[in-house]
């Protein structure tokens, strides 16, 4: 397991949840919708959560538009198609400044910027119709932290073949870390649960 996966599972276990209801797939939670994203944004704002990402100001470039300051959302890559179909979605391709785009970013909807990963959180068969539920963690600044015990994060350990056997045939590669993921303020993060269209 990686640090990311541990943090993911901690959030899935302990963060407060919000079921999307604004989509139209007939399930509970529904697919992602603009109203759900705005609802979660409003709740985080009301809880005094600070935005994590700054505004990207408009520039004089064709096909681009300014991007609002935003909360960070961590979701699964399978949500990419649904995000594309949400009213007001801005692909990162349309951001005015490439230097402000994050590597895993897919785009933004109003005040939420979405980062997608193939190992993001899924609750299997957890919807009212038995479909997989996708956990999208929408968070503000300092909502969570990873406490590095003994003052170290992941250490990559490579042992060359000279240490393994007389014929120098085997190497080992691994990693170790002593780290605890923790929600610092539960008001500043919400698990926005949704299904697919």
């Amino acid at each position: 397991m990686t640090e990311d996966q541990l943090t993911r599972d901690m959030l899935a276990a302990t963060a407060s949840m919000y079921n999307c209801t604004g989509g139209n797939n007939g399930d509970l939670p529904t697919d992602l919708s603009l109203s759900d994203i705005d609802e979660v944004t409003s709740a985080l704002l009301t809880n005094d959560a600070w935005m994590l990402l700054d505004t990207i100001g408009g520039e004089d470039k064709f096909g681009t538009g300014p991007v609002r300051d935003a909360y960070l959302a961590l979701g699964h890559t399978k949500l990419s198609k649904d995000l594309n179909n949400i009213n007001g979605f801005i692909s990162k391709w349309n951001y005015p400044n490439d230097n402000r785009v994050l590597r895993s970013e897919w785009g933004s909807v109003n005040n939420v910027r979405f980062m997608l990963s193939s190992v993001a959180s899924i609750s299997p068969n957890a919807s009212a119709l038995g479909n997989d539920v996708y956990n999208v963690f929408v968070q503000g600044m300092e909502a969570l932290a990873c406490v590095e015990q003994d003052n170290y994060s992941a250490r990559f350990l490579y042992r060359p073949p000279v240490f393994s056997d007389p014929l120098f045939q085997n190497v080992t590669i691994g990693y170790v870390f002593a780290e605890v993921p923790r929600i610092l303020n539960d008001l500043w993060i919400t698990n926005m649960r949704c299904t697919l269209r």
Partner: protein
Amino acid sequence: MSVVFSGTNQGRFTADGTFVTIQLRSGIDWVLIKNETVSYAAGAGAGAEFYWQRGMAQGRGTIYTKTAVTGALAVAQIAANAGFYLVDSSVNLPGASLALTGITAGNPPVVNTANTSSLSNGDIVRIFSTVGALQLGGLDFTIDTLTPGVSFALPFMAQIANANPGAGTFRRIPYNPYFYPSSRYITKVSQATQAIVSLSVIHSYTVGQVVRFIVPPITAAAYGMTELNGLQATIVAIRQADADGKFNTITVDVDTTGFTAFAFPLTTAPGFTPAQVVPMGENTATALNLGANILGGATLNDAFIGIQLTAGANSPGGVANDVIYYLAGTSFDVDNE
């Protein structure tokens, strides 16, 4: 071929008649079980030794059964589902989808189904795709009062107004989130100077932990007690009986006597976010005052890997009071062509 470590773990336990899970942090490629009680006692027909290694099917393995007269061991394959199972508690896979035929409006609600063979009292089930009682869809419940082939009850659920008159489905959920403490769904809240909150799945909260309540307004009536929404509270007692005499509860330092009565949504309610308890910290003073662990609210990773030994006279977990030794290890190389 990258594993250099090849070592062994050994130990002993006394069986209690239920399955045994041996946690082996270094992993496992093989395990040898010796049932000392069966080996040394008179009689025959029970398994004295068992063996499993990677490549053998889940739930199987090899059994060495003690024979009559000489006590020699006869080798055979362990019966299906009576042997060894690899366990990784960080992998969360629900059980198979099973049909139900109705959910009653009794107190507590009872789920009618013939598919109970994989269930035991205390298991968690997730209900979905029902034709009625739609408010239960996607929620997890601990079960009890299991009647084989007929039904099981949802002991911690509030009585529902309208039964589910027909078909539906459920799955057994053979895991809890492996990070502790985890959030839980609320089914009932009392109106009292110290509110008693009932939860749908057995909880493991401790006194002194601080939680926050999410009680969203769904309809004009449900969830009713929206005054509780967003409040944080300290748990001052656990497992006190609620109004229905059920004990899967937390008692908190919130006076709800003047609050609107809590009401679980009806089947006609629109899609909603369930009322929930979210763990958020520890009230150290309260914990100390009540003699509780002041680190009870700390985030804890409970995940483990290991192997599960099925119980029974011809299974590696043995029967009650059997003294059982195990020797488990990892191999330098595993090659199962």
